[in-house]
């Protein structure tokens, strides 16, 4: 496999489950904007195994996803490492760390990988209707990713688990 040089951004989530759409919506917004050379952007419903060759061919991958359990509106950045122990018992949904492990097993390397996630407030069926919190988080998410893309070398200098934006007012 030739030396990887480009950055791949993958936003994923269900487009009809409210704030879960923030990943693909973020990817679509990035794809529609001016990007540095060597950046490819994909929007996906879920992460599937057919993405593995694309992941393995990239120098750096930035995953965009929604998350729950924290304060709605907050955007987080964390480094991801391959984790083969996450083997899915089904085949149409994968954790990004599992797919990174596939990269290592099949292609001998995994890209540097980051997860930029936004805490969602509502995951009801809503046809791409983001909550107000998620709307605000989307802007923060995009700003974070653009800053990472502008870095010439190995991506964000943020420590793993860094919080890069505040939660929505009233959600804490």
């Amino acid at each position, binding site marked *: 496999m030739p030396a990887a040089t480009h950055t791949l951004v993958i936003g994923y989530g269900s487009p009809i489950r409210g704030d879960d759409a923030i990943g693909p919506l973020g990817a679509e917004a990035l794809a529609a904007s001016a990007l540095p050379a060597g950046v490819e952007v994909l929007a996906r419903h879920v992460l599937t195994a*057919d993405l593995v060759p694309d992941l393995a061919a990239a120098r750096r991958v930035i995953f965009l996803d929604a998350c729950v359990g924290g304060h709605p509106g907050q955007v987080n950045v964390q480094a991801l490492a391959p984790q083969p122990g996450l083997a899915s018992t089904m085949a149409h949904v994968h954790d990004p760390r599992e797919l990174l492990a596939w990269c290592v097993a099949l292609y001998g390397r995994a890209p540097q990988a980051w997860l930029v996630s936004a805490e969602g407030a509502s995951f009801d069926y809503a046809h791409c209707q983001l909550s107000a919190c998620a709307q605000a988080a989307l802007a923060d998410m995009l700003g974070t990713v653009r800053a990472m893309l502008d870095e010439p070398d190995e991506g964000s200098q943020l420590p793993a688990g860094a919080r890069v934006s505040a939660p929505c007012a009233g959600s804490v």
Partner: protein
Amino acid sequence: MSRTITIDPVTRIEGHARITLRLSESGRVEDARFHLTQFRGFEKFCEGRPYREMPALTARTCGICPVSHIMASSKACDHLLAVTIPPTAEMLRRVMNLAQIVQSHALSFFHLSSPDLLLGWDADPANRNVFGVMRQDPALARDGIRLRQIGQTIIELLGGKKIHPAWVVPGGVADPLQPDTREAIAALLPEGLEIARRTYGFYKALLPRFTDEARHFGTRPTLFLSLVTAKGQLEHYDGVLRVKDAQGRILEDQVPSTEYARLIGEAAEDWSYMKFPYFKPLGYPQGVYRVGPLARLNNADSCGTPYADVALAEFRTLQEDSPVTSSFHYHYARLVEIIYAFEMMERLLRSPDILDTRVRALARHNRDEGIGVSEAPRGTLMHHYRIDDSGLITWVNLIIATGHNNLAMNQAILQVAETYVEGNQLQEGMLNRVEAVIRCYDPCLSCASHAFGQMPLSLELVDARGRVVDRLARG
């Protein structure tokens, strides 16, 4: 004292299910049941929606086979419109349907079943997964990923996205095929066919290892139901229904798919959310039949493409003088169908009319009842709608491929459990074989119940007083 073994959930299938095995005092298997444990109720909540929403709504049944639902649903809507869709639209739908079959069959073979086939039924469950396959044969695993990627890419090139594309619409397709898209798809096909043929050769060489499983994995007689062409050839998109018995006698032939209800009845049991379709002339529960790749190859007189016909002839040697009755050979049939799909897509894309811009018949609803039937990867898929004068859905019946196979799957797990399970001394390999026979059918329980999820696996032996006397657990 009778006891019950519960396998909950069944792993490496698409969706949630539980298997229970009831044992006699001596530890012999007396009964086996495959339970579908979740319910989503698409047939009810679609009521009141405009029929034109049905392809998009029913596609949400499943993340694996949305294209199949879009296909059958759009055909039901074509029927409501009372139109014959343009020939080019039909060819384009066929290409997408075949791409769906490629990606789904690749997923089933490489991802869900190859751990058993490559590593063995009794291998350590910690290694008997897709990572074990990668370690054992990384080239095979890469082929599996690439086949799925090719199928998904063709769907995306045609429909604009890989999952839930909105390109197939009532009356045809939304947009004609562009020349550069045709070239992009055509460029993928030789590699896909090469991988499919290589995998087929690999599996043929592997097959002698599985003589015992082939003898016991769902070999009891059933009927076979599928679409065939008017000439009796392999068909996945349209055609007519054929029913063949285990001796190879054709019981029903050239039945228009709109008359499916004459052949198929549906029963329900209080222990599963999956319906129990049966062949009406034989009644319930005697009317057991199978659908899917095994049934399609058994029913077809030929495939109609060169390499697939060679493979079909070899498939028929698995059981001389009658249809291939072992459900273990669903794996084999899947690989034959992948070869066929690539050959047929290549033929369709070479058609001089494939770039015709007339791809959609426009009409209002002209019937109050519409039926659409196509072959999904797992088998015959039936969508049946009734609408009111405003075009709002008043009644829906969906008969899903996995549902057709429900009686046969229950029959098969009983056979496997009787053969391999020794209730007094549970071994993980016994449990895995019971699950593996279900994997032969590649059930999509998201479709059959319209539910999905995953949990660690546990198997328990419970005595008549409810005490757990033995336990195996995964995850």
